[in-house]
């Protein structure tokens, strides 16, 4: 399959080979990995400098990412892919897997998001985690996460991708349970890991299916096999995958994505993951790790398109978006609202992937990273100032009390609600347009409905926390209308993200559609409707968003909002109670899966292992002891008994002689 590989370890981009050793994408992973290793072994000695070190290294990766991006822009569109072979990893018989990296337009987008937003969050954490006794360890985990996420993004074969996939799951576990002294945190970490594991298992089976069917794990090769045969002599080598295999494999891989990216049915870990420190929620559970599933689907789009899995992807995405939005409407914990919001927006991205609007999905991924990370960091600042309070019923009027946090959060709120001209408007619109254009009107309607709900619950959050009269929990000091605002390190992160949330739409403005055209060589052309229809649809979505804001305004901002709420709730008591209790999904899983699992484990441990196997082993010992207890009585101490034994032996031996004589 060498036709599909370039085995040179240099990019065909730069002017000469001279610079290639530095412009190797492997460095992107190496910098944060170095940080993680240094902090692992010398963390105590590095001490307070750990934050700067970690941020600096990831920042270095970001700079390199920009350079590589520039190099890509400098070459022609179809040649922007580079394959880098770092080293031979597994070589067993005819099974060869190398540490191969693939850098193309899709990966560079993810790289810039991960390193860029990641660096900002690292800087934010310097202030947020100050004073924590395990400060260096936190940055070690963050850097490790960044390294593994970049491994996932840059991976050129499924095995390396799986390494990154599992690795970020591990880092998620470590970081959610960072304050493991709290039972809720360690339980949440366990839950995250176990639920992810279920998805990862399906992912692994998918990898096996592909390995068997395609005889290779290389992503470019699999994509080529899933696509049409190339013209010319190469067609002879092209053995296409069957649609059945493609469907099965892509469904299995998508099942893994439901775990990692918190879609139905494996989303239950993400709300509980909010027990971790807020920078963790921002980085991992908003911007980067949870988007790995979206990236994976886009990366393997030829495979998904070959089979019939995309329908499943789109519908699960859409339904998850709606489902999570409903639950977010009745949450009081500000971080959990943001968590459900993340699940919902991820649903949008999968919806986009499912209707073959891959660049729309990536566009929304990027803008979502901006405003969601912004809002998480803002929530973190609020918690930081209000001594860790997260209940929105105990907060109020914070925009005037914490101006920087307040105004940046305002930007984020408008962006996610899809208000023109902020970033979210453009990206959400792109998705809805793709859905409409593919004829998926039902999904379009779900998307619009979810947009309304999104606007509603985010406005509810914003109005209750940042508007209205000043309300702070007991014990928080107020100095002439102001609360202790975010320190400078946290501000450094908030402001750029706010800026990006405002101008992020420029990435893919119609009619120029820069991002779309940039990604075209990789994910293919997605049909964008022309003419009046898109503007009409866009305005519908905008109206939905504004309606959501208006409803929230009526219910929460106006003084008589309280009475309106009180009047409304009894009528919708049952659905509201269901949504407020997360539709009892956790309880259902607990009864149906966890309890039987525990029963099985208990049975295995106590009956099979303790009584069965130990019984067998101990029983053998006991049996031998019992036998020897009987047999030892032979040694009676009486010489005459021993003499009798001699005689017995003699008689037996003699009988041999007798028998031989008798038989001749």
């Amino acid at each position, binding site marked *: 399959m060498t036709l599909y590989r370039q085995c040179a370890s240099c990019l065909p981009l730069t002017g000469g080979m001279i610079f290639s050793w530095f412009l190797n994408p492997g460095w992107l992973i190496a910098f944060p990995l170095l940080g993680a290793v240094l902090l692992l072994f010398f963390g105590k000695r590095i001490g307070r400098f750990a934050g700067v070190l970690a941020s600096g290294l990831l920042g270095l990766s970001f700079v390199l990412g920009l350079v590589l991006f520039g190099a890509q822009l400098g070459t022609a569109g179809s040649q922007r892919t580079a394959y880098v072979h770092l080293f031979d990893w597994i070589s067993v018989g005819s099974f060869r897997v190398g540490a191969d990296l693939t850098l193309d337009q899709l990966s560079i987008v993810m790289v810039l998001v991960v390193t860029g937003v990641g660096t900002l969050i690292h800087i934010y954490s310097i202030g947020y985690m100050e004073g924590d006794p395990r400060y260096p360890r936190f940055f070690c985990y963050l850097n490790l996460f960044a390294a593994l996420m970049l491994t996932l993004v840059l991976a050129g074969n499924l095995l390396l991708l799986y390494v990154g996939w599992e690795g970020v799951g591990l880092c998620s576990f470590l970081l959610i349970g960072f304050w493991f002294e709290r039972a809720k945190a360690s339980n949440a970490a366990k839950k995250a890991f176990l639920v992810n594991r279920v998805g990862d298992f399906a992912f692994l089976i998918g990898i096996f299916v592909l390995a068997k069917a395609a005889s290779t794990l290389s992503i470019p090769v699999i994509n080529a096999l899933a696509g049409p045969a190339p013209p010319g002599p190469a067609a002879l080598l092209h053995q296409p995958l069957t649609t059945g295999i493609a469907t099965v494999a892509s469904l299995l891989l998508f099942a893994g994505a439901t775990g990692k990216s918190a879609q139905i049915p494996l989303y239950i870990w993400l709300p509980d993951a909010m027990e971790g420190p807020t920078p963790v929620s921002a980085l991992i559970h908003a911007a980067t790790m949870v988007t790995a599933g979206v990236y994976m689907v886009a990366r393997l789009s030829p495979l998904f398109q070959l089979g019939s899995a995309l329908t499943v992807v789109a519908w699960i995405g859409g339904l998850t978006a709606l489902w999570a939005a409903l639950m977010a409407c009745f949450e009081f914990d500000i971080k959990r609202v943001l968590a459900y919001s993340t699940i919902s927006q991820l649903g949008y991205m999968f919806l986009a992937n499912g209707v073959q609007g891959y660049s729309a999905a990536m566009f929304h991924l990027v803008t979502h990273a901006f405003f969601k990370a912004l809002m998480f960091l803002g929530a973190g600042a609020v918690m930081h100032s209000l001594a860790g309070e997260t209940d929105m019923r105990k907060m109020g009027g914070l925009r005037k009390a914490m101006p920087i946090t307040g105004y940046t959060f305002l930007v984020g709120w408008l962006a996610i609600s899809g208000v023109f001209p902020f970033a979210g408007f453009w990206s959400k619109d792109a998705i809805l347009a793709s859905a409409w254009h593919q004829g998926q009107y039902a999904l379009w309607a779900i998307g619009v409905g979810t947009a309304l709900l999104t606007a509603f619950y985010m406005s509810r959050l914003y109005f209750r926390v940042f508007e209205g009269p000043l309300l702070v929990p007991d014990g928080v000091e107020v100095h002439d209308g102001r609360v202790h605002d975010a320190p400078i390190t946290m501000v450094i992160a908030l402001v750029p993200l706010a800026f990006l949330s405002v101008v992020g739409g420029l990435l893919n403005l119609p009619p120029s559609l820069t991002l779309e055209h940039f990604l075209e060589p990789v994910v293919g052309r997605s049909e964008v409707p022309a003419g009046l229809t898109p503007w009409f649809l866009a305005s519908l979505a905008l109206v939905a968003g504004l309606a959501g804001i208006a409803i929230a305004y009526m219910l929460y901002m106006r003084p008589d909002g309280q009475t309106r709420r009180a009047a409304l709730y009894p009528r919708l008591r049952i659905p509201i109670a269901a949504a407020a209790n997360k539709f009892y999904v956790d309880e259902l899983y607990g009864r149906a899966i966890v309890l039987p699992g525990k029963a099985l484990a208990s049975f295995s441990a106590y009956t099979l292992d303790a009584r069965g196997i130990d019984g067998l082993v101990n029983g053998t010992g006991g049996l031998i002891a019992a036998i020897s207890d009987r047999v*030892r009585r032979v*040694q*009676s*101490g*009486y*010489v*005459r008994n021993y*003499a*009798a034994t001699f*005689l017995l032996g003699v008689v037996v031996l003699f009988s041999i002689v007798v028998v031989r004589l008798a038989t001749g």
Partner: protein
Amino acid sequence: MTSVAPGYYLVLAGLMFTIGVVGVLVRRNAIVIFMFVELMLNAVNLIFVTFARMHGNVDGQILVFFVLVVAAAEVTVGLAIILMIARRRNSADVDGVHLLRW
């Protein structure tokens, strides 16, 4: 004169040997047991002499000579030991020395 077939002597020796064995197992006095051992040795002597006759040379009889000498030495030392043990325990009962048991 016509002699008796050697088989009968062998049968006699075998019977005496067996009686010696049974005696060792059944009797309790140490010296009596020793005497039954001597009985066994005597039976063996008879067997050697019979075979000497069957072979037609005196080698078997020389062996008997040696058995005799060794039996003498053995009886000497054995009885000395029995004497010592029996004096200590004031009894010649072999069942009394049964401490090396389970």
